[in-house]
């Protein structure tokens, strides 16, 4: 109820301190440094961010330029009449399954290790990230090898019971269900990492409120932690889904035909690249719509921690069967996603591994490390800039820019690689001509001739992963912390450096980790964009696998896992150590 306005003339007091209200303020000099909103830094940030978005989004945009290419009608008609409906259906099934699977495994595991106190929790907390090092296509190879009809499991069953093919039913690994399982096992760590950080850093204090309102631990989880962690979980699941949609290696190996299969079919089998690009754009539109819907459905809700004490309350130490159940629950995804396939790989590598195993692998690992490291650094730096700009400036331009940057992840690797090729090669040729005309010497293609183009391609593809991680980390920094810092004379870049970066440390490391591992595993873009004689572990796996020498490929696959483990182990300790209040518990 607003009180009615009153005239401001005093009843009794003859002394009236207020100057008469001037309706039109007198013109006064503006202070130095004064500026129009949104302010110098705001505009500067905006410009830089949009520029980056354009750069990173160039491949996506160059794919999108095919949207209006004529002459693709026949291919479309053929696909629509024959396979596309099936592909779409399979894709939806796959997405649904993987989303549910990775969300429940990732969130569940994160919940257990952040909430319950049981023996081995500290080790499991970082071990649960390990499956990240296992490329989905490698999981697919190993599980197929183990579980297919001719594999040891079924063979043993047949031998033991004297069955033949018709006598028994065994689930088929190479099926949609199998693909769901593979992707879930390989990708749940995305969700796990994001959810865990959130449970640790934000949803903690709020849990107590839930319990003071009569909610048990289980209900608090559903009604407090989960909704509070929603942006992070949504971010993780989005990454998982985009990766699933972009995947071709695994689904092709399983002959599970998805929308991506359709894209490849249009391009490779039907030779219609414009149609392929149009299909890719349709896929992107789908992803964009989903992401936008998720954002929109959050409405005006926020997800900052509103409490001032933010230590995660752990349960009392659990022992006995309760502890056993929890350990068991954590071991399932760890075993399925890492221990078992890792063991199988090791076995394969030892018995029938790569004949060329040796020094060559040091070089392969070095190359992998180089590209992954450079990309991770670039992605984290760009992600900070983008997420930070979005925090400073909430305009539509930035939102769109951010969205475009995010889409690279959902584009199948080969498509994005070609998308990268187009602008990079053009720039490269331009450069060459420029140097030619001014120095009379043709340097050749500088970008595609070095790993610059490759790193650029990987950045374009994986920047989203970093942005998601940084974004969900920024949620824990309340806007008034920014204000406080600025009232103490810090400019926005200084606020970034002295407040945000330290508080984001865990999230930045997570971002770096995600990108690093992703690049280690990445294949299609690496394959096309690399310079001469630049082999990585992933290309080595591809070379052998494409020649159907899976057992021999196991050595390189194992090396990918091993190299990927290094940052996982290093960083997950750092991440664990970066939580606020660490050590005082």
């Amino acid at each position, binding site marked *: 109820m607003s009180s009615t306005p009153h005239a401001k003339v005093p009843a009794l007091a003859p002394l009236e301190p207020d100057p008469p209200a001037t309706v039109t303020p007198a013109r006064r000099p503006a202070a130095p440094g004064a500026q129009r909103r949104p302010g110098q830094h705001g505009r500067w940030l905006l410009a830089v961010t949009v520029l980056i978005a354009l750069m990173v989004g160039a491949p996506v945009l160059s794919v999108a330029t095919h949207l209006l290419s004529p002459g693709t009608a026949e291919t479309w008609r053929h696909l629509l009449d*024959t396979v596309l409906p099936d592909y779409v259906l399979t894709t939806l099934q796959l997405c649904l399954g993987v989303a549910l699977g990775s969300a429940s495994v990732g969130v569940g595991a994160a919940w257990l290790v952040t909430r319950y106190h049981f023996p081995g929790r500290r080790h499991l907390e970082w071990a649960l990230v390990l499956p990240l090092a296992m490329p989905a296509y490698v999981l697919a190879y190993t599980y197929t090898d183990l579980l297919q009809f001719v594999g040891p499991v079924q063979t043993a069953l047949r031998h033991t019971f004297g069955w033949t093919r018709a006598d028994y039913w065994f689930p088929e690994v190479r099926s949609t269900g199998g693909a769901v399982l593979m992707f879930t096992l390989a990708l749940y760590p995305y969700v796990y990492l994001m959810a865990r950080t959130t449970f640790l850093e934000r949803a903690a204090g709020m849990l107590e409120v839930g319990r003071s309102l009569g909610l048990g631990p289980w209900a608090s989880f559903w009604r407090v932690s989960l909704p509070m962690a929603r942006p992070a979980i949504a971010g993780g699941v989005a990454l998982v889904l985009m990766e699933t949609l972009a995947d071709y290696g695994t689904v092709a190996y399983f002959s599970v035909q998805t929308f991506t299969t359709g894209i490849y079919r249009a391009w490779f089998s039907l030779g219609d*690249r414009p149609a392929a690009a149009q299909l890719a754009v349709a896929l992107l539109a789908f992803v964009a719509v989903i992401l936008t819907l998720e954002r929109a459905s959050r409405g005006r809700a926020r997800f900052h921690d509103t409490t001032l004490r933010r230590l995660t309350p752990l349960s009392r130490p659990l022992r006995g069967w309760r502890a056993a159940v929890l350990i068991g629950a954590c071991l399932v995804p760890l075993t399925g996603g890492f221990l078992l396939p890792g063991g199988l790989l090791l076995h394969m590598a030892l018995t029938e591994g790569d004949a060329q195993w040796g020094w060559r692998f040091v070089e392969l690992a070095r190359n992998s490390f180089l590209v992954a490291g450079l990309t991770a650094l670039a992605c984290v730096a760009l992600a900070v800039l983008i997420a930070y700009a979005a925090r400073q400036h909430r305009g539509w331009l930035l939102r769109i820019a951010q969205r475009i940057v995010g889409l690279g992840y959902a584009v199948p690797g080969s498509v994005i690689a070609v998308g990268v090729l187009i602008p990079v090669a053009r720039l490269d040729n331009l450069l060459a001509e420029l140097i030619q005309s001014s120095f009379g010497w043709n340097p050749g293609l500088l970008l595609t001739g070095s790993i610059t183009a490759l790193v650029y391609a990987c950045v374009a593809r994986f920047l989203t992963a970093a942005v998601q991680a940084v974004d969900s980390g920024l949620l824990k920094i309340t806007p008034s912390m920014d204000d406080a810092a600025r009232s103490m004379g810090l400019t926005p870049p200084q606020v970034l450096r002295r407040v945000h970066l330290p508080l984001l440390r865990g999230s930045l490391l997570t971002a770096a980790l995600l990108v690093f591992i992703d690049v280690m595993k990445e294949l299609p873009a690496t394959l096309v964009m690399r310079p001469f004689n630049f082999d990585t572990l992933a290309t080595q796996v591809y070379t052998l696998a494409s020649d159907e020498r899976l057992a021999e490929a196991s050595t390189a696959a194992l090396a990918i896992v091993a190299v990927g483990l290094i940052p996982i182990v290093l960083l997950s300790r750092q991440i664990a150590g970066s939580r606020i209040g660490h050590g005082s518990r």
Partner: protein
Amino acid sequence: QEQVLNIYSARHYQTDESLYANFTKATGIKINRLDGKEDELLERIRNEGANSPADILITVDAARLEMADSRGVFQPIQSKLLEARIPDTLRTPTWIAFSTRARAIVYNKLSMKKEWVQTYEDLANPRLKGQICVRSGNHPYNLSLGAAVIHHLGEAKAEEWARGLVANFARSPKGGDVDQLKAVAAGECSVAISNSYYIARMMRSSNADDQAVMRSLGVVWPNQQTWGTHINVSGAGVLKHAPHKAAAVKFMEYLAGDEAQTYFADGNNEWPAAKGVKPKNPALDALGPFKSDSLPIGELSKGAVTAQKVFDRAGWK
């Protein structure tokens, strides 16, 4: 200045590496290699345009070579030596095949009668219902086979054939050719289609499991009485903007040479393309000679896209 040769290759058998090393040893020309997939390499070449560093493109599918040619990335090569050594059917003005492989039928000796699987057409016979394993329909090997079938039977008949084949599948298509061999051996199905070099590789393998697989399998060269067994090739062309054209031609000639031919084909258990080169390969010897399809290899590309559409309509996943 150091002499170099830049190769974009979609053929990446590890056994080929010493071949490249030998070339460098013999000529002093250093080889830079970039391995990739045909279509993507092709995109890269096209986008790099006039400044492309690539001299040679190698692939393992005639249709792809043809497609590259139709996009105008190759330049004609005049080499008396190549003309003399490589037969006309394995050569076009712009690209040349260096080895051949055949698409064979493999059957389980216990559960399948050899007589039932003498031709590709036999595979569509309803009596083979639930017996056939094959890799997916969009793989170039199958598309190339499909193109040949369309060439010989016509599109309508070919589609009928594909439907019959699909109806006989023991399982939905999955895995590579080696997987099909193992599945037949293990009894998951009785018949499969496989490239010849996988069969030969298994035959030469020292792995006991592989030996056991091969013991239970029989190999048929299909259509000996009619149009012959379908073959495909590994081949290469010199690129239009090749900065080192002379070295490129030299390399092509080197590949056509006796020693390289033996090695190039033998390393991957293929048949040399050059006339008169006899590899010493016990597995290939054991498989024996056969009548191959005499269709000029470049013709295949025309049917590949149609083959995909036919397969899609027939439901060959």
